[in-house]
């Protein structure tokens, strides 16, 4: 009975047992599986309809969420079977109008109307709605972006999603800005709900259709770290998006949903948002939960017209009350997991990266010059300089750029990323680098760029 130690075990938390959760109309089941072990929390939809950020759960299919804080929303009521550990609770909205989801949904149908108009327009050059979602930290920006995109996809559209927040990668590692067409269902089991790097193409099949992004490398966490570069990359991404609109009619009519960096009322943040809005010819600006940002943007953009001559609507919507505050540790763990996932895949798809050994002389690694006191921006022509390979480079991930080593630095810097490699080891004596590359083929003469963020965390090779 009382074997030492055994009697001390705490009773299993009730949350670990299988349980049934019945949700009423518009209710949300919010869960935090970030602390649970690798088993995560399993959710099965028994009846009704439910979705995660706009993507429906299939009936009777068990979804496993690991390292995830999110919510399952039902529009018309559902029953869920939950098993595994998670901190969770249900948010009810007896008065439908209290739910911010209602306004998100109405926004979606407004966008649908514009999409339809764009599809039927006689002038084929005008794209569908371009929505920019902005707001302060933890206001649910990305969730809303995901929801708007998923709903559009569900109704048959192929919307473009672009992310300008280098703090979180969209189908890419952190430190990048990217865009992709979402023409098919998202992988809702991913921590990032389909926006994670796990949804990018690999050499094998994927149970959930993959998405193909265009990626540019910023190499910093915050826009303020290098506003000039961020603006350049934003313009670059915007021109790619414009070209995509011109090329693909389906995408053009579905328009764009734009995720933005965390915004405060700082002048520089507002400037960045305005820059993005202009570059992408945004015609709807959605501000979540900050009236001050909304009014500031309204003052600036409310008077403008897009390059297609449309007025710009700036609207403020409530942020979802239950948005999980993601602390830095959690964000960091997500970030690290995404780097690992990029190379090694996830539980559903195991990937085998290749380890290559290369001579110092055979790789061209660039970095942004160290900032000198007194210089806001480095002198022209000095945007990148060859980096000295030292042991300090160990465990960093470097971006492989789609350019040639002989290209001018400015070209390299703004070239799209074709992938990432991780520096596994630096042997300064033998002047050799051990690198982890996603694919087995050699790098050729692709330049590598060494950013300043995210900082290395582990030895990927253990």
């Amino acid at each position, binding site marked *: 009975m009382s074997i030492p130690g055994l009697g001390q075990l705490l009773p299993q938390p009730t949350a670990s047992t299988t349980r049934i959760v019945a949700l009423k109309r518009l209710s949300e089941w919010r869960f935090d599986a970030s602390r649970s072990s690798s088993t995560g929390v399993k959710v099965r939809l028994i009846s009704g309809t439910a979705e995660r950020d706009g993507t429906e759960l299939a*009936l009777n299919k068990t979804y496993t969420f690991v390292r995830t804080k999110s919510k399952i929303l039902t529009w018309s009521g559902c029953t869920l079977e939950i098993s595994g550990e998670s901190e969770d609770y249900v948010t009810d909205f007896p008065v439908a109008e209290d739910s911010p989801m209602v306004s998100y949904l109405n926004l979606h149908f407004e966008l649908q109307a514009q999409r339809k108009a764009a599809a039927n327009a006689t002038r084929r050059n005008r794209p569908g709605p371009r929505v920019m979602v902005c707001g302060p930290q933890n206001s649910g920006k990305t969730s809303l972006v995901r929801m708007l995109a998923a709903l559009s996809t569900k109704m048959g559209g192929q919307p473009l999603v672009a992310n300008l927040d280098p703090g979180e990668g969209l189908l890419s590692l952190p430190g990048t800005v990217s865009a992709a067409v979402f023409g098919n269902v998202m992988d809702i089991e991913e921590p990032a709900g389909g926006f994670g790097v796990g949804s*990018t193409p690999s050499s094998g099949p994927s149970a959930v259709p993959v998405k193909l992004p265009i990626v540019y490398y910023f190499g910093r966490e915050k826009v303020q770290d290098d506003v000039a570069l961020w603006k350049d990359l934003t313009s670059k991404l915007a021109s790619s998006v414009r070209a995509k609109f011109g090329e693909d009619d389906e995408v053009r009519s579905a328009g764009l949903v734009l995720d933005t960096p965390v915004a405060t009322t700082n002048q520089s943040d507002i400037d960045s948002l305005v820059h993005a809005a202009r570059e992408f010819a945004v015609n709807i600006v959605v501000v979540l939960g900050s009236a001050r940002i909304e009014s500031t943007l309204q003052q600036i953009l409310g008077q403008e017209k897009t390059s297609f001559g449309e*007025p710009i609507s700036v609207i403020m919507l409530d942020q979802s009350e239950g948005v999980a505050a993601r602390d830095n540790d959690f964000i960091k763990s997500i970030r690290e997991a995404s780097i690992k996932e990029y190379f090694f895949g996830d539980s559903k798809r195991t990937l085998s990266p290749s380890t290559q050994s290369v001579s110092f002389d055979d790789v061209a690694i660039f970095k942004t010059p160290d900032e000198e006191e007194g210089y806001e921006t480095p002198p022209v022509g000095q945007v990148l300089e060859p980096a000295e390979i030292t042991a300090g480079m160990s465990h960093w991930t470097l971006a492989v750029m789609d350019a040639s080593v002989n290209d001018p630095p400015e070209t390299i810097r703004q070239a799209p990323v074709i992938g990432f490699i991780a520096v596994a080891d630096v042997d300064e004596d033998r002047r050799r680098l051990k690198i982890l590359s996603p694919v087995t083929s050699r790098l050729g003469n692709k330049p590598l760029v060494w950013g300043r963020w995210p900082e290395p965390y582990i030895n990927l090779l253990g």
Partner: protein
Amino acid sequence: MTDNAADVAEDYRQALEDLTINSRIEIATLTNIARENANHGLAITEVLQNHIKKVPPGRTLPALYVLDSVVKNVPTPYALYFGPKLYSVFMGAYTKVDNMTRRKMEEMLRTWKEPVPGSISSRPVFPPEHVQPIENALVAAHNAALAAQQNSYQGTQQLLRSARPSAPNRDTPTPPMARAPSHQAGPHSQQAFPGPNGQPQYHNDLAMAQQPYPVRPLSANMIPARAPPQAPPPAGPFYGHQQPAGRDAYGAPQPGISIDKLKDDIQHLIVAAKAEFAQDPLDISKQTRLKALLDLQTLIQRQDMPQDQLMVVKDKVAELAVNTRAPSAAPLSMPMPYAYAATPPVVVSQQPTPVPPVAVARPPPPAAAPPSAVSFDGLFGQGALATLLGGLQKPATPQTPVLHRPPPLAAAAAAAASPALATLTSAAVRATPPPPQRPVEPAAQPAVSSLSANPSALLAMLRQSGLLAAGAPAAGVAPAPPQPASSAAVGNISSLLSQARPFAAAPAPSGHGSGQLQAASLKQFRPQLIAQFHDDLGPPCTQCGRRFRADEQGRRKKTAHMDWHFRVHQRIAEAEKRGQHRSWYVDEMDWIKSREAIDVDYVAPDLGGSGNNSGDGDGDDGNQAGGDYYYAAGGSGGRADSSSARQPVGAKTNDKNSKKIHYIAVPDDPGVNTTCPICQERFEMKWLDEAQEWVWMDAVWVPASSSASSAGARPEQRRVYHATCHREVGGGSAAQQAHHFARATPEPVLGKRKAEDEFNSLRGGKLKMEGY
């Protein structure tokens, strides 16, 4: 068929492991395999038995259906093999699965006591000596569960639960003829059951005889509903679950038919009982049982038992506890929820074809039968209901259709003032004038409450059945219901719903496409919008939740989509063996030109096969590296006529061929050239995982004559070239063609870079592989 038993068993085991969902096609295939390998039946039996033991609970049911299908379709030898093991297999599975699955298993068990439907043999699927122990165990389990819940109802439950000859002390108070009326008298008569009676088995046997009726329609709904839409209807292994004759009895119950069927069933039981009796003539219980059966037969043949009495008896006996939670004071209430509860939940969104109108237009259940207003709640308690399947009320309908009248609907129409359609629907459907508020117990009654608590599912079904034709005038057209009375009801409901629609639509959304958004307008809840991205889009895919419309085009898309799932499922298994890696992203041009290739992102094996490209000979067949892209490169050429789904696939195939990594196994022949005749560089030797051998990368065999194909050429007649070098100098017409295509396509996706990288690195010789 030269395989030995071990091989067959291993193959079968693997096939079973792929069976993760209740797919009728897969089950049919597995049945056919079992049939074809009947000579290895013992091995297959073994495998299937072990599989059922080992699979996780979620996949147990499909495995059991395989067993069911196999024994019904290939009774010899499988029924013989499985018979002795049946108890352990069944009970082993039963203990680990959830309640929903258990009920399905109970249904299946019931079918095992009958002959295979459509078969000329009158023998049951499994002889009683194999089925009975299971039933006994189940009854014991139920009793234990019930006893915990509701002591007072235990006896009744036991009685009604199943046929059980070996319950010597459980007597019934009344002789058979008197008993049926006593049921009608109401719940009170139930107390009389556990009294002394000389014919204990009679009732049980009756129960047994009744069971075929409730079971069939349910199974028929259940199994095809899960199967993919393109499933060929009957003739499958589950023809046993189709109910050609039975359905009449449910849709428009005809006493004659059901009596006949009843007689047949009793006849079978008598045969079985006789056999038992012959085996052990001294066993009193068997003797009694047989006598009871014969009595019953006589009774039925005289047909002096009123139909409604029969039905009432049948209701209970066959576990038709369809509720009646409504007090008998409100007999007309709640037709719809129960009708829906009658259908397994899975139908709501998975069944691609409209629900049979029979189910939708179901008139009220026995609740409404005034003379026999038996409250099963009273009998069993709520908890007991949870264990019963809702669909079983169907035989009860004959008594009640007449009672289904407009009044409650009119009352519900008053509720139509509610602007919320969803609310309205649930109100119209669920709430009733004197709301007999029963506690909703989702946990305890998933089958019932899940549906009744889900207005949108109801809406979906209404819509599918044509009742709610999205506001079209057709809304009033009832889908040819089986009974006039219920047809009237349907008409009422639909008109009610169509009336309701304007209400629901009243708060019109803000100006669509106006470009100006009003925060106030955005906040307004418009429930009618919800259907637009749920039910209006058709039922969702069972695997990923993507919705497909129910029209012709939607079905086509769904077929393609399910094919896609199937292939991906297969290829994932292959890819796991092969090893895979993250692909590079693409450059701007590729990205801009790429297209979302929805459900066509696969290359048909014959198109993508090797041998037609550049004569790259030996080792090429296994080369899949870079072969799986998900995006068709929409070249300028391809784009012009990309309307055909075929085009992108073809284009991609060509791309693929042109940018395959060429390699050959390192030749054994020492006479082969080790440097490329063109660039004079040595071939790079590398261990290639995909090929599982040492290869020369970027190398092709080229016949000495330089003709296009070298597949059959002998080594001494051909030389090895760098594929890139050879292509550059224009060797190989196929290669040239493919290359030309690649040129014509502005920027092929992904693979081009790969080839280029190979090229670069070969030339530059910058990086050395270290292997793994």
